[in-house]
């Protein structure tokens, strides 16, 4: 697949992703935040496709946008209280938080500035056609143990979520 | 049966038969006991109907009628009692749960209060309605004009 108009799509998708991220943290209504987050997630999936990682993009769409976000929306509907719409949306110590985040951002910027040339454009010739097969081989080869641990983690999470959310088991 | 009742309660209880249908006329005070006895002692386990009639000329204006049926004996009996305007009458909901809505309907239509009913309010007519339409002094074209105007926004429901 020849990438089409790559810079254009990159800027489009990253603008959408960042705008979505901003909306997530500024919207008062949690449902609006969730929708903004969905926009971000889908844009990031698009970025993955541009990075020749179609399998991760697919997983992102299925698991994140289709699964986790539905869970979020579900919970927002269950605990939807009108009260929270009228209250303060932010903490009292928000200015400390902003300061810390700005400091963190400054750190990132300085790293990027300092490290110019640290990330050479190697552009490995990754075969996009066999991407899925390769990931599968890694998952069931090198990372077999991690894979099993991850599945155990999911099992524990399922049980934990059920125990937490259900009053009478 | 009637003889037994009479022995037990003496006056205040009369039994009649008209066209092969039996009914008891019972004093208001005896009502809960008689109904209980009819259900438990005489197997009248099915309360077919509960209604009332209005006789404005009588001293005790209202007649309340229970129609009972016994599956065991395949027999019907009616129990009647008279009460005056404003009097209440003990509820039969504890004896036959059927009486719940039926008593509400009697209240709705005649304004007879049933003491001890769990939910004494109008059933067929709207909650705010004034008047009890099955009384004889309630004309057939009469209606609660005020309610109609407020709730339906029209001059008359006719």
């Amino acid at each position: 697949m020849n990438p089409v108009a790559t810079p254009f799509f990159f800027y489009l998708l990253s603008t959408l992703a960042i705008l979505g991220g901003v909306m997530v943290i500024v919207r008062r209504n949690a449902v609006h935040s969730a929708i903004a987050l969905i926009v971000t997630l889908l844009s990031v999936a698009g970025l993955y496709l541009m990075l020749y990682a179609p399998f991760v993009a697919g997983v992102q769409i299925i698991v994140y946008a289709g699964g986790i976000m539905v869970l979020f929306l579900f919970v927002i509907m269950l605990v939807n209280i009108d009260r929270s719409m009228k209250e303060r949306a932010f903490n009292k110590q928000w200015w400390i938080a902003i300061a810390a985040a700005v400091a963190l951002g400054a750190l990132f910027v300085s790293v990027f500035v300092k490290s110019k040339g640290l990330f050479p454009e190697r552009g490995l010739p990754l075969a996009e056609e066999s991407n899925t097969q390769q990931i599968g081989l890694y998952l069931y080869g090198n990372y077999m143990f991690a894979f099993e641990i991850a599945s155990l983690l999911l099992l524990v999470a399922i049980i934990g979520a059920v125990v937490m959310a259900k009053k009478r088991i | 049966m009637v003889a037994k009742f009479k022995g037990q309660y003496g006056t205040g209880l009369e039994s009649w038969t008209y066209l092969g249908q039996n009914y008891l006329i019972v004093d208001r005070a005896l009502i809960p006991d008689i109904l209980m006895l009819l259900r438990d002692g005489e197997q009248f386990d099915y309360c077919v109907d509960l209604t009332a009639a209005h006789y404005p000329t009588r001293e005790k204006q209202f007649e309340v009628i229970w129609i009972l049926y016994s599956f065991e004996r395949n027999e019907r009996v009616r129990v009647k009692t008279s009460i005056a305007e404003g009097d209440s009458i003990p509820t039969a909901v504890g004896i036959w749960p059927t009486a719940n809505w039926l008593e509400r309907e009697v209240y709705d239509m005649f304004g007879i209060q049933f003491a001890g009913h769990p939910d004494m309010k109008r059933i067929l007519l709207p909650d705010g309605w004034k008047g009890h339409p099955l009384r004889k002094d309630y004309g057939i074209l009469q209606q609660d004009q005020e309610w109609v105007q407020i709730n339906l926004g029209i001059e008359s429901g006719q």
Partner: protein
Amino acid sequence: MVPITTTHYLVVAAALFVLGVIGVLTRRNVVIVLMSIELILNAVNLNLVAFSRMWGLHGQVFAIFVVVDAAAEAAVGLGILIAFFRNKETINVDEIDLLKW
């Protein structure tokens, strides 16, 4: 136009990360805090995938593990949230400051 390099992706990821941190630190609504955490995880994932273009597929595999972790975290987090909401009728972080109920 400037060709898109790995650094471009890293900048986007860093922006998302900072946004997520701001969300976690400032918002009172637990649901939005959890969503901000998802933002942070996504930023990390974007980094991983961007680097995997240079150093092989390991980054993508790791990104998948991160997605698994995000799913587990969301499920448990929301479960705790529901349990808490049932008892306290609130979903604000600064009211969930006691260690028992």
